[in-house]
């Protein structure tokens, strides 16, 4: 009886351990909630939220190509050559532009190299708001990875009824691997 109990405990312990391993392993590479510090205390809440600057003013690539892009440093000075020039953060930007030593932002939303994602396909063609994938960016002082950005997360949308109208070429990517993997 004692032996059986021991075996049962061992089995449960092994099962729990196994479940823990599997759940943990499935999280490898997902960084949902990742919110690193940035070299410049830039606030999306201020610019996109309060001031209602269009996302595509800075992230102009989102409409045209694969990458939304971090805006060229000089672009900040379009306004900040006049606005808040005494702020220490703006001075960092001015210094980068003057010295040629660029700011190294920390990448928040990262896609693996073996998956192809094109911003213009979603922003321009499908007409989605940035918030759909990036969360309520207009409320974030420090940007954080809102969604999982894993394959299951992509497929959830692409299998959903909201996209995928039936006519052939206008159809959004179905389940074909090589829509994204090549």
């Amino acid at each position, binding site marked *: 009886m004692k032996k059986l109990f021991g075996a049962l405990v061992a089995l449960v312990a092994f099962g729990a351990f196994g479940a*823990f391993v599997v759940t*943990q392993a499935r999280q*490898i590479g997902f960084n949902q909630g990742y919110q690193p510090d940035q070299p410049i205390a830039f606030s999306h809440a201020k610019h996109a939220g309060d001031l209602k600057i269009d996302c595509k003013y800075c992230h102009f690539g989102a409409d*045209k190509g694969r990458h939304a892009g971090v805006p060229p440093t*000089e672009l900040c000075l379009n306004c900040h050559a006049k606005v808040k020039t005494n702020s220490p953060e703006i001075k960092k930007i001015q210094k980068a532009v003057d010295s040629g030593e660029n700011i190294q932002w920390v990448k928040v939303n*990262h896609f693996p190299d073996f998956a192809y994602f094109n911003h213009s396909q979603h922003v321009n063609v499908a007409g989605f708001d940035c918030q759909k994938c990036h969360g309520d960016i207009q409320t974030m002082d420090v940007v954080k990875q809102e969604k999982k950005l894993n394959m299951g997360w992509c497929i959830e949308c692409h299998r959903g009824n909201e996209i995928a109208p039936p006519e052939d*070429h206008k159809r959004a990517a179905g389940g*074909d691997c090589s829509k994204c*993997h*090549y």
Partner: protein
Amino acid sequence: MSKFEKNDNCGTSCGCGSQTEGYWQDVENKVLDPQAVSKEFQDGEFDSFSVEKSRRSFLKIMGFSVTALPLTGCIKIPVKKAIPYLHKNDTVIPGVANWYASTFKGVPLLVKTRESRPIKIEGNDKSMTTMGGVGSQQQASVLSLYDSNRLNGPTISGAEVEWAEFDQKLKEDLKAAKESGKEVLIITPSISSPSEITLIKEFTKAYGAKHIAFDGTSDYSQVKANEISFNAKAKNSYDFTKANVIVSFGADFLGTWGNSSTNTKQYVSRRDPSSSEGMSRHIQIEPVMSLTGSNADYRHTKSLKDSRDIILGVLKSLTGEGPGNTSNNDIVSGIVKELKANKGKSLVISNDSDINVQVVINKINQAVGNYNSTISVMKSDYKICADDMAFEQAVNSMNDGNVAAALFVDVNPAYSFHNSKKFESAVKKVSTVVSFALSNDETSVLAKYNATANHTFETWSDSLVSDSELSFTQPVIQPLFGSRMYTETLMSLMGKSGSFHDYMKSFWSKDFYPKSSGFATATDFWNKSLHDGVVSLDGLSKAASISSMNASSYAKKVASIEYSSGLNIVTYQKTAIMDGDMANNPWLQELPDPITKATWDNYVMVSPMYAKENSIKTGDVVTLKSKDHSVTLPAIVQPGTEKNTVAVAVGYGRKVAGKVARNLGENAFAFYTYNRGATQTADSFGTLAKTGKFKGLAQTQTHHSMEGRDIVRETTFADYSKNPKAGNEKKAKLVNIYPPDHKKDGHQWAMAIDLTKCTGCSSCIISCNAENNVSVVGRQEVANRREMHWLRIDRYYKGDENQPEVMHMPMLCQHCENAPCENVCPVMATVHSSDGINQQVYNRCVGTRYCANNCPYKVRRFNWFNYDRSDKLANMVLNPDVSTRTRGIMEKCSMCIQRIQEGKLQAKRERRDLKDGDIKLACQQSCPGDGIVFGDMNDKDSKIAAFLGSDRNYTVLEELNVRPRVSYLTKVRNK
């Protein structure tokens, strides 16, 4: 025909031993360095896997993995930086390609740049000359740009210096040279750049210098013959579209001779059996099998002597001039009959480096009225052709100590001059030697000054690509090294300020703007021309007057040429390497020769008859000795070689070059001789001796016997005219589990390849490599049958091994609807897409290789290693839209899925339907013969639908019922 032994390592899956009537494939058994296999696992590649095989170590590893796994949950991916542009150019959008027009080696191009770095070359279809055709060298040029072997700025006696110091010292030396009263020479290759020529003229004036054009392999005999015949120092311009009959004596006009991309485009346009003009007929007479010869309708394997004899016979029959022929009457009469029936619509060409032969050829063309119809001789001030005699004299003059300064621009005579020892000792007697080499070569190491020049894609220039078309060369990237355009160095030496761009612009507004029409200002004209890359103008060249002349005396001279005894050593250029200036390009080195399928080497080609008599096998190392030169190279038994002829390719045996080119093969330029007023490429005679050694060649095809199956289907034009289905009558009975009305909606991609249009030029392979980041594996791995090319060109022979017929068949993933590879993948890494593509998903692949085993076409490629990507600079050429593959991953043709996706997205962004032709695959785009068609087979008006509906359409191994989406059109020969 001899029977050939079956090989155990056959390419397509075999099973039966019988051969299709007349077809054959292999010359001998497979050749492989026996040491290679045993060496393979000794390089430490698999060291990490070598653990002690015991229960204890097994438990150790298991224990570690189980405890380590939960820890992975705590691991965050490393911090990745995102560095934006500081100042961004308006035209650059990350992730969006920009295209710029430029030119490489006289071929107008479009250069695709991503984030300002050139990654891919395509033809410029605005050009009236090339009509979008490009060759393999153009395709590969973008990799040469990122050659880490390039020199980082100017050097004086090997030491790096600043440009200012360099200019000052060189100026002093040149001034002294000018004042010494001795000669100052500037030596360039043949130039067709108007603004460069103008600048060089100014330079020669300023320094009292003499300009000499030198090419390793020149067309001097033709130029000189035109001077004799028509008083015009110019090359011929051909129009293959007007030629019903083409008779070529050894000229490899589809591969290495003349402007091969343009030639191929024009030639193939007349090879459509369904066109109303009819097919052209091509007769080739040559001692060794060339790419062009392999495409001929009638090919005669004849020695050089016999070829010349035939030329004399044709002359005699047509004009009564000269001594006539002594043999081969049937060939002569056949040619004469064809020429007489097509007066003014034929072409007779020869690559003979003997001037007198070329004069005779001129006379033949004149006699049948080809001038100003299929051939024109256009004089232009904007072209300077290589002059063998002038260079020969220059070397003598250097040797005599009469030259004070010599500037070598983009030429490498220490390697490509026939007597390099003489050149070396001559150049040592010149006090100021300047080289403009990009990276060290045989000549630059002899020079005191090296004014390191820019790569073409960092250069401003222009070129006359035909008699009436100019093409721009514009920089598409900032210089990667501390180099400078050679033109700007010349300007600086002349004390001219400003850039060559400004010089060129003012030259254009002075010289070309007045010739243009419809532009308000010179700047408008410049901008439009620069945008398009090409511009057609009148008055760039003037037709020479074609006056009649008697060729008797020249014919007599041809008849009296003396031939030594022994084997005639013929030199030739390989399609990819040409004369060796791009030898440090791994893409080109690994491109299989279209005929021999050998990579990474040159070799001695011997005829099957000679090989049998002297028991030589492919791979036997032989010593080929002429009067004053000898090479020791492996032999290759090459069908279609004349019995007493051996052939060696030039372009190999580079002694001073980058690590790719160094010590590959031997230099065959030394078999060139200077005789009868010109550099002769086939005047050497010698003997062949076996050394008893063996060196396996890295061939990509040693046995692809068709094994009784009609893989290539072909017919003759005569049969085709009677029945368009000729040669393609066989249809396999196929069963299908789907009901007949089973629908395939949406786009359904398909490809068709016209075998009549494929010349085997292999431009598509390099294009595919560049587009899809295909790895270079190196010589040994090719020998191990592990080349990675997604697209290969199979070459089949038929008939007599001395005069075989050749077929080229591009073979790539056939995207079978019932793909056998898909059934056997245990991890679903290869699956079918809804639009008919056989997908390979790298991140799912675990490398079982079952798929490759089950592929009837052997088109799947396995990454046996992590192939070298350590060269950061060379990695700049990678296409960022295609992932690179690592060890253990299977890969294969993806039908350029990234281009399909890009094309669809472009249409969607523009809110329109996809049109036929919107998507062009890399191979299709680069095919100078337009032999590859791709499109949506559900689009009934598309080109692909027409190809699929053609009577000539068939699929390879149809009886397997795999239903390939890639189909072929039968090859039609004009017989």
